[in-house]
């Protein structure tokens, strides 16, 4: 069936099209209304509904012959007064909720035209409820009532419509089909201008609504299990169940269907039921009821009994009961097709079932729940919180009513604080799109206006950093009972260990653990941890380059948290604050880690990183967490005075790369910029001097400081694609880290300074600024240049000149790697570089093809940067004193 269905006459189609057009116009006009406008109209509609509650109840009873007049009137009042109480202060127009701390606002957008089907069981109350919801949310509704409740529903719509329009609602906001057919419904369900189908009723109607392909609120049948547990207040429970199951002769689909009663109280409960005007059927009567009110073919209830009084049902099926009987109780032995009365019965017939344990009772309730009641409603009477909790866990129902009547409890607002409704969403279990008590928010499209919220930044470094010649003397200020010095053989040989020892307070027991001068292996780390445990160390001094300090960081981690799984801690992450794996916070020994660096490059003495080699697996494991940062850093140049030239150059360029990459990182901040720029200035000035004159104390001191300061920058702003490339290339061809960085550096700067082919998402950056920051660096270095482009070129030229001065190979080809060999390696290099986390803070997101291009540029050397003009070259020369 479609909106162009040929089974409808042209006249009928024109009529239906007219209804939709009228509703569409009303809905369009309604978008201009304010919250105050709709609130004023809703209040007047509610008053009109309350005024007519009994009149509409009478009409419903007369037309449908279902239910109880008094209860129908009560339902009409709940549908108006209680719903109004819930919606009156709710914002449904414009901005309805704001979360300033998240920068998010929710803004209401009406749906437009709603096609609404209403049931026979609660005809007028459902119409009243939906009219109020529609006006509150500025929607227009075309009603299609159940054919056997058409007149009363039409009257309810009329009363609501007149009250609404009288107080300012747009004309045409409600219409009600009369004498409609299934074809009419199908036409409207498929109409392109209908925004939502709200189908309250039987499964066929709900299925048709969902089958239309339109957004639909389809609610439907239930089969409410009740667990009457032995700790319950039995008097209250029995009265509540009778109240609920007889309410409007059981027509509310949330009403009780099968009560599962604990064995201990079963007989007492039945006696109480009997005392309060119910008829407890014997086996024969139950059998008669089962085959007369339930269709033996389909297993569903027969319409003749729906909404009828117990006494009338008894008469219909030939049972002899007392005239005051209000409810028929039918004991059954189980749930399923062989027990016909275990299904939904929208009339005052209630099945009861005995359970020998809580477990059995819960299983029986689950059975009832799955016998046509998934997602709808369930009830428990108990004082045992554990049982209540378990019931809530195992039963699939949108409304789990505790110690209250099911039907009236599920309506909300009377026995509990649930949202008042006349439409019970049953979730996916019931084939519905919602499990809510359908309410005004189901009649709105809620838009989220999300403001940009820059992530909070940080600047974290060790809280004690001692620097300058003889800064090692500060070790005297750190009391320790047992100190273990982690170092490598060279440090012992050249006497650095003795220098450290001399500065440790004399009362301290000092032990030295010498590890190989290479990236630490798991085995080495675990041996170190054994030593720490053996000596019960309360202080660890790492004396060496990056490898030794990294080893000490991991030793401390395992010493303090023996259960730490290094493999797991190395899990990849994108954002430090949102990482899946958290580092352990408990510390068994509370030992202090003091890092004394003997090279001027990695800055490991202040960084939260450590690299471990897993030889067995043939790979490196990078650990990153601020808990790894040393507690104290000592930056004493006496330990680097004897660094050889090659190491001075390699580590110095590593430091320079840290500064440059942290400077343009998407995580850079004024705090990291301050460090990056200072380090850049120091390295540019003092690296050539330290390289040419290794004994120059000032140059050594400043380069040692530069390395530490650059590390403070990249500890917080991270590095970039240069490091990703260098890691991949260095590991593949066995090239030292600093040297590998140097080969990539000019090309990466030129790459980052160009307009990116792909921008990196960076909430903390306003626009693309990498090229400007490079220009700022050039200005700081006094390299000259008029435009940003010139300044970047001057920076590249200056770096190339520095690399020449430090006698670095200027291309990968210069290392003797053949083009063929390199070409073969490229796919792996690109893959590994892309897997490296370093580039994730790069200002420009590298594409795989771009990584390959960068590798090739580095292979050829010097080709990316434009040659500087003579004027620019002169400025560079002057700056570098060449």
């Amino acid at each position, binding site marked *: 069936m479609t909106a162009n269905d040929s089974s409808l006459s042209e006249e009928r189609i024109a009529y239906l099209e007219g209804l939709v057009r009228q509703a*569409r116009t009303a809905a*369009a*006009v309604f*978008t*201009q209304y304010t919250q105050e406008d709709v609130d004023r109209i809703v209040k007047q509609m509610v008053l009109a509904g309350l005024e007519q509650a009994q009149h509409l109840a009478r009409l419903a009873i007369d037309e449908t012959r279902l239910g109880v007049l008094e209860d129908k009137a009560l339902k009409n009042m709940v549908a108006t007064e209680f719903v109004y109480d819930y919606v009156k202060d709710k914002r449904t127009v414009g901005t309805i909720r704001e979360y300033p701390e998240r920068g998010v606002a929710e803004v209401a957008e009406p749906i*437009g035209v709603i096609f609404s089907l209403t049931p026979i069981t609660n005809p007028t109350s459902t119409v009243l409820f939906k009219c109020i919801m529609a006006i509150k949310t500025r929607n227009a509704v075309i009603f299609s009532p159940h054919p056997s409740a058409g007149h009363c529903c039409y009257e309810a719509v009329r009363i609501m419509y007149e009250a609404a329009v009288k107080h300012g609602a747009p004309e045409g906001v409600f219409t009600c089909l009369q004498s409609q057919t299934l074809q009419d419904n199908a036409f409207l369900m498929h109409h392109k201008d209908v925004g939502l189908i709200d189908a309250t009723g039987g499964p066929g109607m709900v299925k048709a609504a969902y089958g239309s392909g339109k957004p639909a609120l389809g609610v439907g049948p239930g089969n409410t299990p009740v667990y009457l547990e032995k700790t319950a207040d039995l008097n209250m429970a029995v009265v509540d169940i009778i109240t609920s199951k007889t309410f409007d002769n059981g027509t509310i689909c949330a009403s009780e269907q099968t009560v599962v009663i604990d064995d201990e109280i079963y007989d007492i409960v039945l006696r109480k039921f009997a005392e309060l005007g119910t008829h407890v059927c014997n086996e024969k009567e139950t059998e008669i009821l089962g085959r007369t009110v339930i269709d033996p073919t389909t297993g569903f209830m027969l319409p003749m009994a729906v909404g009828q009084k117990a006494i009338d049902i008894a008469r219909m099926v030939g049972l002899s009961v007392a005239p005051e009987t209000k409810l028929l109780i039918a004991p059954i032995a189980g749930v399923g097709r062989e027990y016909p009365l275990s299904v939904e019965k929208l009339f005052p017939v209630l099945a009861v079932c005995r359970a020998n344990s809580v477990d059995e009772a819960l299983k029986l309730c689950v059975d009832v729940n799955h016998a046509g009641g998934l997602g709808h409603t369930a009830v428990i009477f108990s004082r045992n919180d554990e049982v209540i909790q378990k019931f809530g866990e195992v039963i699939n129902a949108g409304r789990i009513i505790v110690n209250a009547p099911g039907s009236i409890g599920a309506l909300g607002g009377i026995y509990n604080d649930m949202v008042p409704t006349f439409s019970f969403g049953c979730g996916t279990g019931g084939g519905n799109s919602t499990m809510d008590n359908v309410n005004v928010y189901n009649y709105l499209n809620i838009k989220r206006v999300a403001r940009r919220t820059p992530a909070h930044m940080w600047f974290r470094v060790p809280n004690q950093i001692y620097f300058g010649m003889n800064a090692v003397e500060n070790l005297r200020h750190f009391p320790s009972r047992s100190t273990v010095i982690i170092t490598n053989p060279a440090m012992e040989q050249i006497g650095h260990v003795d220098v450290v020892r001399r500065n440790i307070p004399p009362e301290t027991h000092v032990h030295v653990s010498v590890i190989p001068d290479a990236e630490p292996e798991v085995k080495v780390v675990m041996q170190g941890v054994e030593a720490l445990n053996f000596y019960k160390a309360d202080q660890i001094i790492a004396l060496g380059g990056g490898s030794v300090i990294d080893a000490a960081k991991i030793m401390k981690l395992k010493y303090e948290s023996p259960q730490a799984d290094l493999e797991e801690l190395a899990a990849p992450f994108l954002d430090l604050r949102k990482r899946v794996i958290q580092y352990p916070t408990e510390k068994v020994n509370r030992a202090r880690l003091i890092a004394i660096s003997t090279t001027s490059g990695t800055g490991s003495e202040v960084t939260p990183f450590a690299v471990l080699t897993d030889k067995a697996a043939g790979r490196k494991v990078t650990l990153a967490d601020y808990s790894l940062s040393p507690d104290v850093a000592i930056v004493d140049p006496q330990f680097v005075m004897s660094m050889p030239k090659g190491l001075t150059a390699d580590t110095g360029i590593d430091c320079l790369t840290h500064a440059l990459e942290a400077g343009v990182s998407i995580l850079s901040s004024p705090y990291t910029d301050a460090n990056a720029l200072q380090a850049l200035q120091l390295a540019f000035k003092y690296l050539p001097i330290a390289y040419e004159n290794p004994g120059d104390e000032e140059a050594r001191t400043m380069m040692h400081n530069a390395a530490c300061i650059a590390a403070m920058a990249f500890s917080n702003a991270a590095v970039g694609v240069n490091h990703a490339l260098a890691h991949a290339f260095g590991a593949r061809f066995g090239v030292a880290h600093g040297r590998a960085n140097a080969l990539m550096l000019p090309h990466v700067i030129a790459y980052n300074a160009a307009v990116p082919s792909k921008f990196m998402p960076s909430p903390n950056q306003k626009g693309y600024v990498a090229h400007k920051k490079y220009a700022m660096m050039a200005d700081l270095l006094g390299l000259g240049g008029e435009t940003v482009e010139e300044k970047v070129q001057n920076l590249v030229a200056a770096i190339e000149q520095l690399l020449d001065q430090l006698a670095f190979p200027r291309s990968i080809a210069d290392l003797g790697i053949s083009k063929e060999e390199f070409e073969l390696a490229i796919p792996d290099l690109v893959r590994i570089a892309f897997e490296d986390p370093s580039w994730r803070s790069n200002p420009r997101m590298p594409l795989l093809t771009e990584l390959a291009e960068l590798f090739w540029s580095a292979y050829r050397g010097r080709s990316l940067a434009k040659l500087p003009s003579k004027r620019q070259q002169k400025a560079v020369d002057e700056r570098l004193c060449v």
Partner: protein
Amino acid sequence: MTTMMNVCLEIDEKHVVVALQESCDKLDAAVGDVMLDFSAVPRIDPSGLKAMEALAGAADDKGIKVVLRGVNVDIYKVLKLAKLSSRFAFAN
């Protein structure tokens, strides 16, 4: 290209329907485009919308373009939802 604009009416907030009906009547005499100034209209009701639909129909029949000037965004959205916006031209 010059566009002749021989009818230009200001629409009064309180008499939208009447003004639109008058505009409709003037279409017979129109040679070029018709411009209606909505600057003073903050909101439109269903009868106004119906009158606009009628005007659009009449203008279509006569091959005349109706230009709406100064329509606020709320009314513009109403015209969009009522599927009438494509039948008018808009000017600020």
